[in-house]
């Protein structure tokens, strides 16, 4: 849900409101309004960050005046609150966001909006008064059911702390945002920042319904949910109830940001890989998650979840790990926070990844071998879940990927989303454009890919390329190419796509890279795949190893074999010369030296 704060006129107050980061800030140019901003200098608006749309509100003003004021004050949007015609609105469309406001009462005829549909970007529905709004009263929101057009709308009129929870329950598909004004004031035009803060908190704790995002039931389209036995229900329910409150809290954000900066070493660089760019005929950028403390993106999530666990009052941490990267990241943050840590790891993986087992032990974690089933990552996950069943009160389970029952896929995606958040800003700085043509990443469960995609998902012009591990070949019988080989089903608590037999038994995957050796993918990936929003491809062991070596030789970077899968996909892409391509270098290759050495014989 978007938030618009309207009726601003005092410079200091404007700054304080802007610091809350609403989506729109409204300035009223109507002489009869007590919130008329006539005395406000244009310069007062320059301090407002670009992410906030500065909106001029006009009532039956001449188009020449509006034109002039848009230029003078740098408005990004105009809200036309009088009797402006569709043609009048159309004149501004394309230049600024056009919001047409209507006063609503029980007699309002929504049919009249049809003529405006192609001429405005948004509607704003306010309570009908003689004075063109500003009444501080609500209208009966049930009337909104009569609105059937596909233009999104703001809800305005009398929204206050008393009724904001009811606003959150509005499920109209075009409900775009809420307009906050007179109920959040000390006097007309002077906003009460504390009240606004409270409202922002309530509103932002609602899941924002986006096309490819999660809904309130934990589903991404057909995928997700929480298919868990009753024994896990209280644990998962506690998380579901609390996670948004906690992670949107200012204290939490401050601590998380501080650790990411000063402990992990963020922001990670966005490196313009010039020799790669030359070779592949496009601007190739590496997002260097390999430079994080502990050597991969996994630490982002581990830091976020340990802070979450602390605020939930948990005394003990459990985790699963495949290659050991997530186990090491979890053991690291547990040492940092002085919390007991138990890591489950498949017995076979413990042999394959012995150095990481030693690392975890040095960091003070207890590493428990998973001896059931195939003795790899999926069985380690089963053992961690069993532990959690037996320890429902004091233990938090730090899942390492965007998998598991809701809310885990959303929690992990949010903590990893820092990757694309930084990328956008870095691209803007380096290329002048924040959107690239392609973002690419490897996918096991899919956490680095989800972090790399997160802030680009709703920008459909950006192509998302996810690279799975084909192992010895998709049809070799030894593969981890989940979308190519899998079907819909339920794995580790969520409905997703997984590799399974006709009888619904989970198939053990194979990849040379332990981090991609997982029979499922996160439910949001399943959704991106099924809707066609993301392109899911696969790369064999051999292609990945060759690509890893190439990266060493062209750019002086030894990538993790997981990452090398994403790099190998570059060989198969056809780029235009000006394309900007970002590829997530999810981890460094030190842990894979033995594998590289055995293959290339160095």
């Amino acid at each position, binding site marked *: 849900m978007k938030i618009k704060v309207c009726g601003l006129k005092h410079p200091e107050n404007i700054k304080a409101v802007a610091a809350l980061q609403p989506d729109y800030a409204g300035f009223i140019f109507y002489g009869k309004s007590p919130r008329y901003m006539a005395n406000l200098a244009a310069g007062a608006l320059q301090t407002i960050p670009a992410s906030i749309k500065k909106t001029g509100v006009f009532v039956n003003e001449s188009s020449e005046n509006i034109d002039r004021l848009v230029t003078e004050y740098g408005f990004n949007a105009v809200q036309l609150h009088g009797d402006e015609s569709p043609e009048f609105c159309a004149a501004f469309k394309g230049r600024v966001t056009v919001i047409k406001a209507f006063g609503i009462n029980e007699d309002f005829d929504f049919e009249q909006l049809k003529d405006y549909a192609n001429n405005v970007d948004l509607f704003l529905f306010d309570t009908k008064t003689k004075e063109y709004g500003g009444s501080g009263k609500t209208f009966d929101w049930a009337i909104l059911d009569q609105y059937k057009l596909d233009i999104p709308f703001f809800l305005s009129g009398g929204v206050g702390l008393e009724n904001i929870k009811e606003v959150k329950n509005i499920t109209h598909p075009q409900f775009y945002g809420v307009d906050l004004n007179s109920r959040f004031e000390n006097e007309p035009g002077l906003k009460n920042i504390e009240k606004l803060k409270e409202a922002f908190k309530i509103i932002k704790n609602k899941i924002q319904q986006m096309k490819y995002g999660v809904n309130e*039931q934990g589903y991404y389209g057909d995928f997700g*949910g*929480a*298919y*868990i*036995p*009753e*024994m896990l*229900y*209280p644990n998962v329910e506690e998380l579901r109830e609390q996670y948004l409150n906690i992670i949107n809290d200012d204290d939490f954000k401050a601590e998380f940001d501080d650790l990411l900066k000063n402990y992990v070493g963020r922001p990670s660089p966005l490196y313009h890989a010039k020799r790669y760019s030359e070779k592949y005929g496009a601007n190739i950028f590496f997002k260097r998650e390999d430079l994080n403390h502990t050597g991969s993106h996994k630490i982002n999530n581990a830091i976020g979840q340990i802070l979450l666990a602390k605020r939930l009052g948990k005394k003990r941490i459990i985790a699963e790990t495949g290659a050991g990267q997530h186990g090491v990241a979890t053991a690291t943050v547990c040492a940092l926070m002085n919390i007991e840590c138990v890591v489950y790891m498949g017995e076979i993986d413990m042999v394959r990844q012995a150095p990481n087992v030693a690392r975890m032990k040095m960091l003070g974690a207890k590493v428990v071998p998973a001896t*059931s*089933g195939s003795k790899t990552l*999926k*069985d380690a996950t*089963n053992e961690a*879940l*069993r532990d959690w*069943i*037996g320890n*429902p*009160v004091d233990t938090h389970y730090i899942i390492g990927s965007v998998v598991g029952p809701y809310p885990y896929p959303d929690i992990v995606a949010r903590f990893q989303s820092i990757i694309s958040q930084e990328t956008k800003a870095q691209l803007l700085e380096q290329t002048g454009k924040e959107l690239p043509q392609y973002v690419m990443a490897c996918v096991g469960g899919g956490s680095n890919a989800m972090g790399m995609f997160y802030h680009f998902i709703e920008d459909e012009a950006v192509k998302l390329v996810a690279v799975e591990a084909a192992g010895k070949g998709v049809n070799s019988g030894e593969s981890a190419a989940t979308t190519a080989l899998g*079907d*819909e*089903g*339920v*794995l*580790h*608590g969520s409905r997703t796509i997984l590799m*399974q037999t*006709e*009888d*619904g*038994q*989970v198939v053990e995957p194979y990849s040379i890279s332990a981090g991609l050796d997982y029979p499922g993918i996160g439910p949001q990936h399943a959704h991106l795949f099924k809707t066609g929003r993301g392109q899911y491809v696969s790369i064999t062991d051999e292609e990945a190893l060759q690509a890893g070596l190439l990266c060493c030789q062209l750019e002086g970077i030894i990538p993790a074999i997981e990452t090398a899968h994403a790099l190998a996909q570059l060989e198969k892409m056809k780029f235009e010369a000006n394309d900007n391509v970002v590829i997530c270098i999810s981890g460094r290759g030190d842990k894979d030296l033995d594998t590289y050495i055995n293959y290339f014989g160095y």
Partner: protein
Amino acid sequence: MNRLNKLFASKNNNLLSIYFTAGYPALNTTVDIAEALEKSGADFLEIGFPYSDPVADGPTIQHSSEVALENGMSLKVLFEELAELRSRVSIPILLMGYFNPIAQYGVERFCKKAAEVGVDGIIVPDLPIYEYEKMYSSYFIDNGLSNIFLVTPQTSEERIRKIDELSNSFIYLLSSSTITGYNLKLSDSVEEYYKRITAMKLKNPTIIGFGITDSSSFTKACNYANGAIIGSKFVKLLGEEGYMDNIEGFVKGIRP
């Protein structure tokens, strides 16, 4: 009214239920074992169908599931074996297993087939209430199958009420928040939990499961519920040689 409802209408205490995994220790033993259990006095049975990733189960049942899968057990094979169920066994039968095999078989097809071979109820630990109600309940109801929900000491009163409302045969009370195969310790908090459930005066009978291993824990459980279920302990017996001859002794040892 299915066989389960009839059973609870005629008898409301000391009910003994036994769980075993189909296909363990060998194929084509399901109906033999069921028949022997009925003859030995068990009141109703839970037949488990195996899954590769049984997160709610401890080592004993996990092992039985692995062996059953290696033996070639699947829902298809199980339904073939159960074709002769009702010519040999008359006590109520529940099928118990994880959701993914059912989803692949097709939930509607699964329910139809279960009803056709004479199954009375289904226990799917990882099928949540929300999904059951929203997507699948009609298949269960249309086929006269009871869906059994689990309740743990951590389940809220509100949720227990909801479960009571959705249930139409019995509610499966877990002795503690645990996976299968651990001994029941009747601590004060467990006793308090049972008393809390009793005080709620639910419309459905309750049966206690997980951690019931012998006559003593069975008797204790029956103080607080209409009966109890034994699983891992019996599955262990099936792993021993000559198990068919020992079934009667096992059952009589639990409830003389």
